[in-house]
């Protein structure tokens, strides 16, 4: 347990210190990775742990982003930057979740997709929300007396939030509640038979995931000072799914790794070749076909194989001796 805590602390410190060894652009990429990582982690809670595949998760990301944009333009503070977006996302998640959880499987996917597209349609048309161009010029908030317009302050703020949210999600997943969610993922009928109010658990998971996604969206607005209807489009949900799958479903850390892989592919590879989409598509297909555990799953598998070598080597030697 302590080893895990230490490793986590090391990673967080490394992330916090990154700006001291790298220029603005790599730091910006890292910050985007952190934000998308949070978004993907929230989806992982829903998908990897509870087994609810949503193609409409971008609804909450976009909602958090827009609420933050509108609120921060009025008064840049913690209320506008974090609390309101999370609350708005949670509320909408409650309504959407309540309606969507009544169906499952493909229908759940379709319904969640429809909801996020509705948000897209509205923000795309409405002039007061900036229509197709979105909202620009959003200031960063002042939180606890610190003006986050400064680069270092903002970076530490992002890393701190990532750490807090990661710990929060980790605790949720490890808690009895999290175990029930996993039970539902494995066999919903059994959980119902045992007496758990499955729908209520699923709804709660949906709301938690939605609010965390909303925070991610708010952070996205704060990073770029900008939000547009693209945040709601169904391909944004798809990209988050991609990140979770590539990183490793049901691992939380995998979501962040997947986000890193996607963003680095999109930004780095696109500087060298125009064919980054092709590479992304092929990578994704390869992962789905051959590495369904994602990066983390593959690494765990490799680690297990590595640990098993002494045993296997010993068995092989014995087998050879027997043959001789």
């Amino acid at each position, binding site marked *: 347990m302590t080893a895990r805590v230490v490793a986590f602390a090391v990673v967080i410190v490394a992330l916090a210190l990154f700006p001291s060894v790298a220029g603005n652009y790599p730091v910006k990429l890292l910050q985007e990775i952190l934000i998308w990582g949070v978004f993907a982690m929230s989806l992982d809670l829903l998908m990897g742990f509870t087994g609810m*595949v949503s193609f409409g998760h971008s609804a909450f990301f976009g909602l958090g982003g827009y609420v933050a944009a509108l609120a921060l333009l009025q008064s840049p503070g913690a209320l506008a930057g974090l609390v309101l977006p999370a609350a708005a996302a949670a509320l909408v998640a409650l309504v959407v979740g309540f309606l969507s959880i009544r169906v499952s499987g493909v*229908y759940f996917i*379709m319904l969640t997709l429809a909801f996020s597209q509705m948000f897209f349609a509205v923000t795309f048309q409405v002039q007061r929300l900036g229509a197709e161009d979105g909202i620009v010029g959003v200031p960063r908030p002042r939180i606890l007396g610190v003006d986050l317009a400064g680069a270092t302050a903002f970076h530490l703020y992002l890393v701190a939030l990532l750490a807090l949210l990661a710990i929060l999600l980790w605790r949720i997943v490890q808690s009895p509640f999290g175990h029930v969610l996993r039970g539902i993922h494995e066999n919903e009928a059994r959980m119902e038979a045992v007496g758990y109010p499955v729908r209520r658990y699923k709804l709660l998971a949906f709301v938690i995931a939605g609010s965390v996604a909303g925070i991610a969206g708010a952070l996205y607005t704060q990073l770029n000072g900008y939000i547009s209807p693209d945040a709601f489009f*169904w391909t944004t949900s*798809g990209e988050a799914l991609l990140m979770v799958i590539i990183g490793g479903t049901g691992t939380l850390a995998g979501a962040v790794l997947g986000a890193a892989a996607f963003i680095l592919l999109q930004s780095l590879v696109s500087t060298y070749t125009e*064919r980054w*989409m092709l590479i992304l*598509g092929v990578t994704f297909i390869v992962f789905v076909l051959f590495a369904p555990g994602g990066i983390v799953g593959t690494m765990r598998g490799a680690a297990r194989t590595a640990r098993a070598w002494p045993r296997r080597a010993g068995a092989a030697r014995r087998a050879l001796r027997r043959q001789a």
Partner: protein
Amino acid sequence: MPVPILADVFAQTLNGLSYGVLLFLLSVGLTLIFGMLDVVNLAHGSFYMLGAYAGLALIAATGNFWLALIAAPIVVGGLGMLVERTCLRPLYRRPPLDQILLTFGFIYLFEDVVKWIWGGRIRSIPSPALFSGSVTLFGATIPSYRVFVIVFGLTVAAALWALIERTRLGSIIRAGVFDAEMTAGLGINVHRVFTGVFGFGAALAALSGVIAGPIQSAYPAMGTEILVRTLIVVVVGGLGSLKGSLAGSLIIGQAETFGKAWLPDTAMLIIYVVMALVVLLRPQGLFGRPLK
């Protein structure tokens, strides 16, 4: 002089029909694939796009629209069968999500390959010389090509109905859609039927793309844009139902057309609301199988 209201409505109805027919060709393939293989083929829009580009290439090479109309779906259908055989079949034992995600990956792949070969700019596809003017029917003026699209689409719908309801192959497909395991139990090589149906669905999507080409030209993003519409049609009509596809596409076609003409600001929103309502109130759609 402004035109009398009846002619106005009739003209818009024709517009809605030509659009609905395109949606029908697309949604039929998607609904069959779902009914049969339990896969929501997100790459369906990509087959539509590939059809349009295949049509572009064939017309450029031969100058003959009708040849392209026949050949392009065959080519794309073959590609679909290849994809199914190599990538989807290994995933049958896995949860359906994996298959859906696989098709999502193919969206990126196909879109970029098309950009690579043809570049990102929009390409015009000429309509056949036979249908390049406009006609006036009952006071409504409409391009003759769109009349062709309506007639052609409805003919294909009739042919499909005949195929599915009246032939042995059709009954195999119907059986497979109803219960794939049982059909396998009857000794039919269901896997081969799956490959065939997937390819057939892709071919229909490509046919829609070729037909749509002279109206809306070809560009790489055309697949992802039409996909959501197609999903809506399939959901409203009922997953797995041919009749549902026809009903759904005609309804959505008219809804969107009249929405654009009379309620422009809410046009986009309306169809998503319709979709949500259907899933909530009648998830099996208009003609789908009742859910267990």
